[in-house]
């Protein structure tokens, strides 16, 4: 878009906002709610352009991840007016659409010539649509994300470690390609003395309260072949959720937890994993791509010392989906302003800048740019990951389903209760009950 056009657009938006100001005193203020993490800071930076162009005063409510779902869903349910714009998790779409918490954006997209074809299809499906796979849009894809891995490149490249690893396993010490290799590399580093400090294999997600262990364990279970249903949309879970592959995947995750994690990482999620890596305790760590720009720039472990890799394969290639779309909260007092923000945000050059600042644009103009792959050390991995993502249930009852999975997985992996098969069998029972309550399965 030319500069002149942008200016005109900015002015028209500003004009429409001034017009709206006479109606509502709050019209030139917008509150955007999101989780408190690195990309949120990038968004504040990015939004300064919007403020400058429209004169809107942006305020931000960033909630720490462990409380994010709790607090924001509570806010939506209570009919609160805290957020005008919300970058909500992908699993919330179902409930928020059915309860009318989000504004349906189809008409707006049409009127403003915003096309969902401009965004990566997987992202649109995951972040914007409900019911899944239909062209009913409740959000604009804002932040692509998936679970990925990073490792200490400097440790991996030490000749003495290279030699020792090769002797032991008969291959080069390199980022693991499969979950079997993952365990070997983890064991290799676990308890090793490096630069006078004891280090450990890997930091993985084990958090109990919100979604941590589910997001971590599914990163092992999807590649092994875990599926939610035998046929999508059938709620037919027996033999899918507890298939031998799913069981093997869950067992692999527990083995990795038992053999190769630092002491005390029994309830850890994003921040704990980052701490472990940044303080030089672990050789590898899983975390969301969202943190990679910050990690690459880290004073202690960034730069040459860090490398990134896509979630290891096993039977198939798969990654656990993260990421969010941006929605307009139906209860807002400043509908025009909120929509103006979405329109502004959807522009290709704003999306480009979003990526440059550390946000993950999923706009095709950004992703398909030939220079994209080399723009960041993890950019190519991001493209691979986004093409193989799988997501949790997005049902309106997702919170119950997630709570059940959290409990069953944590009981098995961390608290050593029962077997993997039993945990997944019980999970099917829990989920069946919920789907019966929802009338999705006849009992």
């Amino acid at each position, binding site marked *: 878009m030319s500069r002149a056009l942008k200016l005109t657009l900015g002015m028209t938006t500003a004009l429409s906002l001034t017009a709206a100001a006479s109606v509502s005193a709050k019209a030139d203020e917008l509150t955007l709610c999101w989780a408190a993490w690195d990309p949120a800071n990038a968004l504040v930076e990015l939004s300064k352009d919007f403020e400058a162009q429209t004169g809107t005063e942006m305020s931000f409510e960033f909630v720490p991840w462990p409380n994010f779902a709790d607090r924001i869903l509570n806010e939506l349910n209570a009919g609160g007016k805290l957020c005008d714009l919300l970058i909500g998790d992908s699993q919330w779409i179902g409930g928020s659409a059915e309860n009318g918490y989000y504004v349906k954006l189809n008409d707006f997209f049409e009127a403003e010539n915003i096309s969902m074809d401009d965004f990566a299809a997987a992202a649109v499906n995951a972040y914007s649509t409900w019911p899944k796979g239909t062209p009913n849009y409740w959000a604009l894809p804002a932040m692509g994300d998936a679970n990925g891995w990073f490792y200490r490149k400097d440790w991996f490249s030490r000749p003495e470690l290279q030699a020792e690893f090769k002797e032991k396993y008969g291959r080069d010490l390199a980022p693991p390609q499969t979950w079997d290799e993952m365990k070997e590399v983890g064991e290799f580093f676990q308890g090793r003395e490096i630069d006078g400090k004891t280090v450990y294999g890997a930091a993985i997600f084990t958090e109990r309260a919100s979604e941590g262990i589910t997001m971590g364990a599914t990163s092992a279970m999807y590649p092994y072949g875990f599926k939610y249903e035998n046929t999508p949309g059938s709620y037919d879970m027996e033999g899918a959720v507890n298939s031998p592959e799913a069981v093997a995947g869950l067992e692999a995750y527990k083995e990795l937890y038992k053999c190769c994690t630092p*002491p*005390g*990482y*029994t*309830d850890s999620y994003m921040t704990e994993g980052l701490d472990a890596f940044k303080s030089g305790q672990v050789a590898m760590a899983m975390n969301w791509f969202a943190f990679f720009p910050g990690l690459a720039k880290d004073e202690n472990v960034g730069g040459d010392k860090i490398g990134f890799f896509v979630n290891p394969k096993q039977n198939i290639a798969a990654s656990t989906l993260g990421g969010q779309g941006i929605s307009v909260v139906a209860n807002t007092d400043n509908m025009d302003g909120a929509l103006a923000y979405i329109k502004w945000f959807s522009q290709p050059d704003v999306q480009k800048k979003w990526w440059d600042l550390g946000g993950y644009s999923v706009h095709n103009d950004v992703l398909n740019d030939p220079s994209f792959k080399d723009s960041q050390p993890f950019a190519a991995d991001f493209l691979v990951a986004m093409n193989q993502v799988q997501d949790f249930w997005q049902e309106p009852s997702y919170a119950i389903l997630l*709570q059940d999975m959290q409990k069953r997985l*944590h009981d098995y992996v*961390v*608290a050593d209760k029962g077997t993997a098969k039993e945990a997944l069998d019980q999970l099917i029972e829990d989920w069946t009950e919920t789907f019966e309550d929802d009338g999705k399965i006849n009992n």
Partner: protein
Amino acid sequence: MNERFSTTLEGTADAAARSTPPAVARRLRGLSDRAIAWIFISPTIILLLAINIFPLCWAIYLSFTNYRANRPNAEVKGVGLRNFERVLTDGDTWLAMQATAHFVFWTIVLQTLIGFTLAYLIDRKFRGHAFWTTVILIPMMLSPAVVGNFWRFLYQPQIGLFNYIVSFFTGVEPSSFQMLGDVTLAPWAIIIVDTWMWTPYVMLICLAGLRSIPDYIYEAAEVDRASPWRQFWSITIPMALPFIMLAVLFRGIENFKMFDMVVLLTGGGPGSTTELASITLKREAFESWRTGRASAFAIILFVAVFGLANIYVKALNRVKQR
């Protein structure tokens, strides 16, 4: 205060009465005692009805429905006793109850033992006892949520102070055990924090009990040449018992309801090891949003604590009368 009172008796009341405008005075004087009683009591009752009883009745109603607070558009249907049946037949409910019972029992035992001992020692009235009593009280002034959050830091196996201190005294490697991550240690981790925080409370009540024992009883025992040991068992303990029981009642009720400290300390983990009843309830009500089922669970909990407390109060009254 007494001085002020005696002057009133001497008749300044008239002056005060005169200073009130006659009409108001007459109107006030005109109020019957009954009207005054009503005016005084009703605001409290109305407030409690509005904010305690009405919601409770609503919860009872909800417990017979499939209502979900995050589905405003869904149809609300009566489901009979299904919610209660589900809660009571769910194995997880009973695990939560067991975890709660374990927590309540051990906190009471430890707090009573330590609290009473402290009270007994403070009652020796050593020099500076008033100052040290105030110091001991500080932990119970803190916010349980903030305390739970900070103890999470203290319990961290590598950077936390707790493991380091234990290691200092026992020689065990600090990072070799995890208070919050270990299935056997986590229930004790929450008991330790609660005991640290609330022993002063039990101590205060016990102290009140010890000080309520009149001197002449000990004097009589002295005359009978009862040994200090005998005096302790036949005077101190029985006379202080109602207070100790009161302390047990208050701590029992509070810990049965325990939520904030534990939720921030362990979040119910590892697995569901420290998932107390209130945490399960919160998950049902505000994370899963099965409002109807959560209401049923809430009512079961309320009936349980109310029933147990009632039985206990009867026992307490019997002890008091003795």
